[in-house]
C-alpha cells in the first residue's frame, strides 16, 4: 500500500526525522486557514499516489493566505496521471541550499534492506543511477544483524558529504529511517529531496512510503491510512468485492484464476493481436459469487467488447465457475460475448453445464490459445 506524502511525513516525524510543519486541506478555505496558521510563504502540494505532480503543476508556492486559497483551487480536482487530487498539503516553504537523496528499499534480489544515498537529489533517482552511478552509494543491511550507526556514517562519507554538521544529521536520519522502515514493515521509504537549508539544517522535503499489505494486520494505524477514495473507481470497486483487478487500456476483458495464469492470459491476448481491457484475478478459491463479482466489475468498463474467462481448476472447481457465469448472465444483462476455457478440477462438468444452458453470447473453447484468439476476434 502506498502512502501519501503527508502520511509518510507524519511517520517520519514520529520517528524523529525532521520535516517541515504543515497542514492538510481538503478545500481552498482550509488551505487559506493553514497558510494563515503556518505563516507565508507556504507550498501547496497535491496529494496523489503517483509521481510527476511537480511537472503536472501540482506543486505551487503561495505568498499569502489568499494566494494559498487560489493555488489550492487550481490544484484540487486536477487529474495527475489518472489520479484526481482531493487533498493538498500546505507546508511552510523551505529555503534550500542543497538537495540530497536518501532511501531504504526492500531489495528482493539481495533479500536485504538497501540504503541508497546520493548528493544528487531532487531529480529522478533512475537518472542518477544511469548517468553517474558512482555518485549513488548503495548499502545493504542484514535483516538479522540489523542497523548499526557506522552504516549511516559509511553512507555520508562514501557519498562525499563534507560538512561535519550535515554528516551527523544525515547519519542520524539514516538510523531513524531504518527504524521507521522496520517499525512499519515498509517496502520503500524514500526522501527525495533531503534538503540542507542555508542554516545547515537537514530535513525531509518529500516522502514516498510503501508498506507491505501482508503486514497490515498488525499495524492498525497504518491500515487506517488507506484512502478508500483513491485510484481508479473500478479498481476500488473490485477491492471492495475482494477481486484483484487492474485496469488496462484495451477491449478484451480478461479473467483468470491465479496471478500467473492471468498475467499469462493478458500476454497471450496481446500476442494474438488483441488489447486486454484489464487484468482480473479470481484468486485461489473462486466460487460462483466471486465470478459474479468479477464479471460485474469487468463489464462496468465501457471499453470492454468481449470477455475471456481462462480458468485452470486446482482448488477452484470448473463447475463452480460455470455456475457463476450462468448466475451472472441471469442476474445482469451482459451483451458482450463471453469466451470460456475451462480445464482442471471438474472442468468437464463445468463445460457440460455451460453447453446445457447454452446462453447465446457464450463461446466455449478447448485451449487457452484458441480462447484468446476467439475473444480477440469477437472484440474486433
Amino acid at each position, binding site marked *: 500500500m502506498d502512502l501519501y506524502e503527508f502520511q509518510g511525513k507524519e511517520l517520519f516525524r514520529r520517528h524523529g526525522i525532521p520535516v517541515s510543519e504543515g497542514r492538510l486541506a481538503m478545500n481552498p478555505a482550509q488551505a487559506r486557514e493553514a497558510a494563515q496558521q503556518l505563516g507565508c510563504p507556504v507550498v501547496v502540494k497535491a496529494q496523489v499516489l503517483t509521481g510527476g505532480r511537480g511537472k503536472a503543476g501540482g506543486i505551487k508556492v503561495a505568498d499569502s493566505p489568499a494566494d494559498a486559497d487560489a493555488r489550492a483551487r487550481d490544484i484540487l480536482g486536477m487529474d495527475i496521471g489518472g489520479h484526481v487530487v482531493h487533498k493538498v498539503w500546505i507546508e511552510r516553504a523551505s529555503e534550500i541550499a542543497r538537495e540530497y537523496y536518501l532511501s531504504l528499499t526492500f531489495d*528482493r534480489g539481495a533479500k536485504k534492506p538497501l540504503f541508497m544515498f546520493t548528493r544528487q537529489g531532487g531529480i529522478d533517482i533512475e537518472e542518477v543511477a544511469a548517468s553517474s552511478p558512482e555518485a549513488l552509494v548503495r548499502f545493504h543491511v542484514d535483516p538479522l544483524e540489523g542497523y548499526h550507526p557506522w552504516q549511516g556514517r559509511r553512507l555520508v562519507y562514501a557519498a562525499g558529504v563534507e560538512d561535519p554538521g550535515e554528516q551527523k544529521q544525515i547519519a542520524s536520519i539514516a538510523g531513524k529511517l531504518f527504524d521507521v522502515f522496520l517499525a512499519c514493515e515498509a517496502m520503500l521509504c524514500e526522501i527525495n529531496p533531503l534538503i540542507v537549508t542555508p542554516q545547515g539544517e537537514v530535513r525531509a522535503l518529500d516522502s514516498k512510503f510503501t508498506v507491505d499489505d*501482508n503486514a497490515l494486520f498488525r499495524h492498525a494505524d497504518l491500515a487506517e491510512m488507506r484512502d478508500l477514495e483513491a485510484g481508479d473507481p473500478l479498481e476500488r470497486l473490485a477491492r471492495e468485492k475482494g477481486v484483484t483487478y487492474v485496469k488496462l487500456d484495451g477491449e478484451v476483458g480478461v479473467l483468470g484464476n491465479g*496471478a*500467473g*495464469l492471468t*498475467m499469462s492470459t493478458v500476454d497471450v491476448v496481446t500476442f494474438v493481436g488483441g488489447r486486454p481491457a484489464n487484468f482480473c484475478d479470481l484468486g485461489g478459491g473462486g466460487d460462483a459469487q466471486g465470478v459474479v463479482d468479477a464479471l460485474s466489475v469487468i463489464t462496468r468498463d465501457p471499453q470492454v467488447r468481449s470477455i475471456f474467462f481462462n480458468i485452470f481448476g486446482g482448488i477452484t472447481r470448473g463447475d463452480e465457475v460455470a455456475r457463476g457465469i450462468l448466475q451472472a448472465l441471469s442476474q445482469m444483462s451482459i451483451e458482450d460475448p463471453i469466451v470460456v476455457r475451462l*480445464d482442471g478440477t471438474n472442468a468437464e462438468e463445468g463445460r457440460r453445464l455451460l453447453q446445457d444452458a447454452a446462453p447465446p453470447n457464450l463461446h466455449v473453447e478447448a485451449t487457452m490459445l484458441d480462447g484468446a484468439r476467439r475473444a480477440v476476434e469477437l472484440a474486433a
Partner: protein
Amino acid sequence: MAILVDTDTRLVVQGLTGSEGKFHGLRNRAYGTQLVAGVTPGKGGQDVEGVPVFDTVVAAVTETGANTSMIFVPAPFAADAIYEALDAGIAIVICITEGVPAHEMLRIHAYLRTRDATMIGPNCPGVLSPEKANVGIIPAEIFREGSVGLVSRSGTLTYQIGHELTQLGLGNSTIVGIGGDPVVGASFVEVLARFEADPQTEHVVMVGEIGGDEEEKAASFIESEMSKPVVAYIAGFTAPPGKTMGHAGAIISGSAGTAQAKKDALEERGVRVGTTPTEAAELVAALARA
C-alpha cells in the same frame, strides 16, 4: 528418484486440525503421501482420521520420524511455525500459507542460510512428485510421471504448463511451486540444482514472472552449472510498468524485473524461452524427441 518429496517423505502438517490443513493433508494422504503427524498447539493427543496430533513439531519428529512439514497455519502465525519446524530438525518445510509479511521472510531467509534445510514457499502450491508423493494443493490428476522437472513461481500457470506437457505425451519428475511472494525460501537456483542432480529428471521447465531477479540469477546458474536442457516461460510481457499485478508481488521499477529483461538474460545464456505456455511445452517436446 524425483526431488524434495518422494516415497521417503514422512509428512507432518502444521495446522492439520484446521479446515484447509485437514482437507489437503488427507487429500495428500489419499494420493499416497506418508502423512505421519499433525501439529496444533493445545490439541496434542487428538487425532485427525487416525493421524496423531502433537502440540509441538519436535514431539511429532520424535514420535513419528517426520522429515517434511507442510504449513497451513494462518499468516500471522506462519513465520513462527516455519521457525519451529526448522528448529525441530525438519529438512523440507513447505509453506502453503498466503499473506506472510515480507519482513518476516527476510529474517527467515537470513536464518535459513545457517541451517541445513530447504524451505518452499510461502504462498505456494507445494511440491508433487507424480506416483510418489504430493505435498500441497497441486491437483495431481493433471500430471503424469515422467522426466520433465517443472519449477514455477505461479500456481495455476504451473497447472497450465503441466497440462500442455501431458497433452504432448510428456510427464514430470517433480513439480515445484516456489511461490510468487517477493521473498521465498528456495529460489529457482536451488531447485534447478536439485533437478540437475536428480537421475529421473532429463529436461527442466522454469516458469517465471515479472519482478525480482531470480530468473536472471537462474540464467547464470543454468549456463555455468547445468548440463540438462532448460526451457523457460515468463509471464507478464504486457504488464504495464509500475502496476502491481495481484499478490504475485510483481512490482517493477524501471526496466529491471520486466519479462523482456528476463527473457533476454535467459536467451543470452542459451536458454530457450517460450512466448506462450503452449510454445514452452512444445519446445520441451521437441527436446525430448531429439
